[in-house]
């Protein structure tokens, strides 16, 4: 096992909720101060969040870090996490007021590699837009992340193809626009943007582009599988950020495995938490 498969740079401890606001239907943005994670986190990494001293729900939940903001001294200090209410834990999290205590550990996972991308095309479905704001800030040259900060050659263009069930579920769109991202929307019910699947937006974006495109994708598994197929057909590099049920986030429980192919084409179960969550789409056995 190589060093990147260990959560050696993770911090674990209590955090206090600063604010927790509803930003779209069933969708919330929670903010808490945690300089230790904020100064280390890279785009595409995640944290575990758990209700403090709570036995039910018991386990932490893996959540992408949406944004990092600075304290009065300009140092990375606050973490923002945007989450969709899907079950018991997120329902209780949505009711958690400012001042409440949570437990967190992170940053975890590999995050997106700093591969150059002249035209970065981010494909998001459902709540899958959340790992992309920091990536957009980084590839637009507006921010650096990590300790020490990593350097990424700025992209000439960044597009977000983002689909949800209906317009009421679309969250954070203005945040992306403020970064200068070209936002293309789709909804299943046609209430806003393209009436249909978000994956149907990819080919037109690529065809219109003046630059070589690189795809990154996060969302429901069928949508990521579809994006991987489109990337293969268009012969474009593509990375997917996988989500699998996870108990620990640090590589010890072996829950979150996914079939990943090696260079000889054989698959093995790899842990999404420490060997991912970002994998080359071509290596994932969907």
């Amino acid at each position, binding site marked *: 096992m190589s060093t990147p498969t*260990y959560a050696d740079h993770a911090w674990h401890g209590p955090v206090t909720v600063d604010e927790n606001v509803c930003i779209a239907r069933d969708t919330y943005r929670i903010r808490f101060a945690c300089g230790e994670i904020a100064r280390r986190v890279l785009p595409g990494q995640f944290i575990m969040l758990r209700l403090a001293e709570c036995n039910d729900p018991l*386990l932490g939940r893996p959540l992408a870090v949406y944004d990092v903001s600075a304290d009065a001294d300009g140092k990375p200090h606050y973490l923002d996490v945007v989450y969709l209410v899907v079950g018991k834990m997120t329902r209780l999290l949505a009711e958690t007021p400012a001042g409440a205590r949570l437990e967190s*550990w992170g940053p975890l996972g590999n995050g997106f590699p700093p591969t150059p991308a002249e035209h970065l095309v981010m494909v998001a479905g459902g709540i899958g837009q959340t790992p992309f704001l920091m990536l957009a800030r980084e590839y637009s040259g507006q921010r650096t992340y990590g300790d020490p900060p990593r350097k990424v050659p700025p992209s000439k263009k960044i597009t977000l193809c983002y689909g949800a069930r209906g317009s009421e579920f679309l969250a954070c769109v203005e945040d992306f626009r403020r970064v200068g991202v070209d936002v293309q929307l789709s909804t299943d019910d046609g209430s806003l943007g393209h009436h249909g699947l978000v994956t149907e937006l990819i080919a037109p974006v690529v065809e219109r582009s003046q630059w070589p495109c690189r795809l990154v994708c996060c969302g429901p598994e069928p949508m990521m599988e579809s994006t991987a197929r489109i990337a293969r057909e268009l012969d474009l590099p593509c990375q997917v950020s996988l989500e*699998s049920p996870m*108990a620990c986030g*640090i590589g*010890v*429980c072996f*829950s979150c495995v996914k079939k990943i192919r090696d260079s000889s084409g054989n698959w093995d179960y790899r842990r999404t938490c420490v060997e991912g969550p970002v994998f080359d789409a071509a290596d994932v056995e969907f």
Partner: protein
Amino acid sequence: MPENPTSVRLDVQLGRLRLANPIMVASGTFGYAREMAGLVNLKRLGGIVPKTITQQPRAGNPPQRTVETAAGMLNSIGLDNDGVEAFIARQLPYLAALGPAVIVSIAGKSSEEFVQLAQRLQEADGIDAVELNVSCPNVSGGTDFGADPSLCERVVASVRRACSYPVLAKLTPNVTNVAEIARAAEAAGADALSLVNTCLGMAVDWRRRRPVLGNVLGGLSGPAIKPIALRIVYQVAQAVKIPLVGIGGIASIDDAMEFFVAGASAVQIGTANFYDPTATMRILDALPDALAELGARSVKEVVGTIGK
């Protein structure tokens, strides 16, 4: 009278195995320890039981492998591991250099395979004991050895003959009478018994009319099973003379003390490592005070003192 916590002795003896303190980590909940190095001061642990190894590499069960349940979780990992040779080459050197006792958890499909594993480990350096996983509910035949007294006796006796290490037998709670199995393991020469592995359970997705777990059934662990584990430790303590290691939902100093008083000489922290990675350190911090509160000068003085 409360004792002075600084003078409380924490070392414990499990048959031929000596631990600097009674706080261990359970197999399958701590990886190969290296994964936890960023969060836990590994040197402080009394013993480390790495993830169970088998003779050949095993891919493990298809996902979904875990699901949370009320105050617990079900798992059906299926002994995903790279096999004994990879363990000896890649994991053991790190574990052996740490300091705490290294108790290697092994599982075989047959008595012969347990023996071959023990013989192979005998040639390796840095191992302090073996724990026989005769109780994994997630592999075909995994619980057979732990559910049948004569099979359990045979596998423990065979491993005792095959290697010089102290032998711990980890038993399943999924039998009518654990004491009967425990007596068989004792008769076969087990140094200690680890009680208990997970409780067989299931989760159902009724909307899709299908089981949640890829392997259909899974093992329940976490706070939900603590009362079951305590009951079994208490019952087995009346049935055997060898030391017991309590396992099942232990997440705090109170949990650990309950197991000591009920009859466990040491404990293993399991599922808590997933949701509270520094639980072992907090329990270790609190242990001397808790023992002193009972007027004890050593762990041994409180073991099995329930009702006394």
